[in-house]
């Protein structure tokens, strides 16, 4: 069964002499070679997926400059004339006031979420008391279940409080439903902070409350920023809660729709009376703030979401 092993016939030099010193470099060279092929291959696939993400978005933004008839035609037609009047039209359809409503709600809901969330997380992470673990798991469990399961009892709860289609009702609901992730995230963050600083403050005669607001909270700033951005994006994009809780109750009740809800209503109306370009323009307007926040804080957004899920 022994077949003679073929030595490299090309050169007259005995094989052993080449192999010994050349071994490591050739291996690395081969590695580099395969790297070049793989590199092209990688960029190919990555670029393809990047196009799949960006193309539809860019296509919609460009489509908002088309006319209705053009949108119904070929997908590849370029807009005839670039005019921004469509953005005015979208604004007049209510996008402007939807933006205002969203802003009013979010100023309060994000602030209160951060305040209550950090207070609860701080106490739960740094103070021993009976029921601590129970309360913590109670908070964390809330992140597990889809909102729509609680939707109808929630609707009646808000109705009984007389808060349907009011800003304060939506704000309270946003805060309540943002607490699980906020508490969960900040809980692990407060744990990483050194106890010595806190102890020093206490020895200096700080009260517990003051120690929290003047010592611990400033130290927790990076964590607060991460979870704050997460809450901003989450509440800005909230859809099912405002849809249920911010309906007009009577004919005279003012329309307090928030942005995503207003956009969705516009989208559903398009089936009957079409102004597609205005809808696309509305989407563009709704997308810009998210894009700006995301691009300026993308590091924190990605870090916040991944560390929230990993640990």
């Amino acid at each position, binding site marked *: 069964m022994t077949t003679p092993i073929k030595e490299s016939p090309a050169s007259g030099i005995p094989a052993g002499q080449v192999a010994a010193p050349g071994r490591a470099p050739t291996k690395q060279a081969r590695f580099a070679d395969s790297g070049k092929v793989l*590199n092209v291959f990688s960029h190919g696939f990555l670029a393809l997926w990047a196009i799949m993400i960006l193309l539809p978005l860019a296509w919609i933004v460009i489509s908002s400059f088309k006319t209705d008839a053009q949108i119904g035609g070929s997908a590849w037609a370029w807009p005839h004339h670039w005019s921004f009047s469509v953005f005015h039209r979208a604004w007049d359809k209510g996008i402007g006031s939807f933006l205002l409503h969203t802003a009013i709600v979010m100023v309060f809901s994000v602030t209160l979420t951060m305040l209550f969330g950090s207070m609860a997380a701080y106490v739960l992470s740094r103070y021993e008391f009976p029921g601590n673990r129970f309360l913590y798991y109670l908070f964390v469990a809330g992140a597990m279940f889809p909102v729509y*399961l609680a939707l109808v009892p929630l609707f009646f709860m808000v109705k009984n409080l007389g808060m349907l289609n009011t800003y304060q009702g939506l704000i309270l609901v946003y*805060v309540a439903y943002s607490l699980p992730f906020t508490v969960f995230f900040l809980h692990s963050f407060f744990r990483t902070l050194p106890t010595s600083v806190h102890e020093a403050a206490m020895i200096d005669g700080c009260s517990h409350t003051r120690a929290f607001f003047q010592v611990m909270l400033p130290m927790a700033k990076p964590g607060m920023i991460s979870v704050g951005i997460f809450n901003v994006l989450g509440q800005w994009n909230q*859809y099912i809660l405002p849809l249920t809780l911010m309906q007009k109750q009577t004919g005279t009740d003012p329309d307090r729709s928030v942005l995503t809800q207003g956009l969705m209503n516009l989208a559903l109306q398009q089936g009957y009376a079409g102004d597609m370009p205005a809808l696309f323009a509305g989407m563009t307007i709704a997308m810009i703030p998210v894009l700006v926040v995301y691009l300026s804080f993308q590091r924190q957004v990605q870090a916040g979401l991944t560390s929230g899920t990993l640990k």
Partner: protein
Amino acid sequence: MRRNSKYPFIVGFLIVPVALYALLVLWPYIQTFGYSFTDWSGESQKMKFIGFKNYSTLFSDDVFRKALWHNVLMLIFLPLVTILLALFFAFLLNVGGRGGTAGIQGVRGSAFYKVVFFFPQVLSVAILVVLFEAVYRSDGGGLLNGILIKLHLESANNPTEWLNDPTFVLWCIMGILVWSGVGFYLVLFSAAMQSIPKEIYEAALLDGAGRGQTFFRVTMPLLWDSVQTAWVYLAIAAMDGFALVSALTPGVSYGGGPDYHSEVLATYLMRNFLYLGKSGYACAMGVVILLLTLILSIVTLRVTRRERIEF
């Protein structure tokens, strides 16, 4: 004395967040459970206790079983496709670059790819709806049909009605979920890959491992924890799908068409709740979904549990 002054502070800090959370989150979930044993119609608060009748009706309900089957399909394919794609891209980003003598590197511009891929994650569902309504448009003006016509894979006179086609509709919805989800899991896996110490790779390279071997023998086992987390999160997402199905697919109130071919548990639940006036029945469905989600998470965590590798 300080020990005694601890409790007022703890109570003071916890009372508002816990009260808000209990009233608006926990209590509605518990109420859903209670209503599931009644014949509540949803309009008045009049109801009769009927025991497990809702639950027994549920299992002979054809539409419910259809919806359940669709959720099972999503449970299988959504995590599988998303995780495989995310792993593939994470692999390309982190080890797909030119491997020189310095060992394996990521591709250039990996930061750019990560930012782009993650972007759909921060878009609200309303934007996704407007976007994909245009992409899946049933005439030649839709992006998908436009591309297929351009590539001569489809005749311009007979374009596919994606969301009206019983065979395609569910896959179209899943496509959107994959499209928007891959980026997040890519970032998750990428972060996990980068936390693996470089020395392990160097050791593997010195021992003569190739890229494939390094990936399957070193990277994957160390990544197992994140894959497991991802699977649970995607399974929870697969039990939902409400917003996209209800806004994008045809059908009387909350979509699910054509002819229940894209019906999911969430949309069927909402139709029973708010349209058919069978709130007690819908609550029973909610409890079933809740239990399924719980069982699923526990099973996933158990089945995929392996010995944790510390590094």
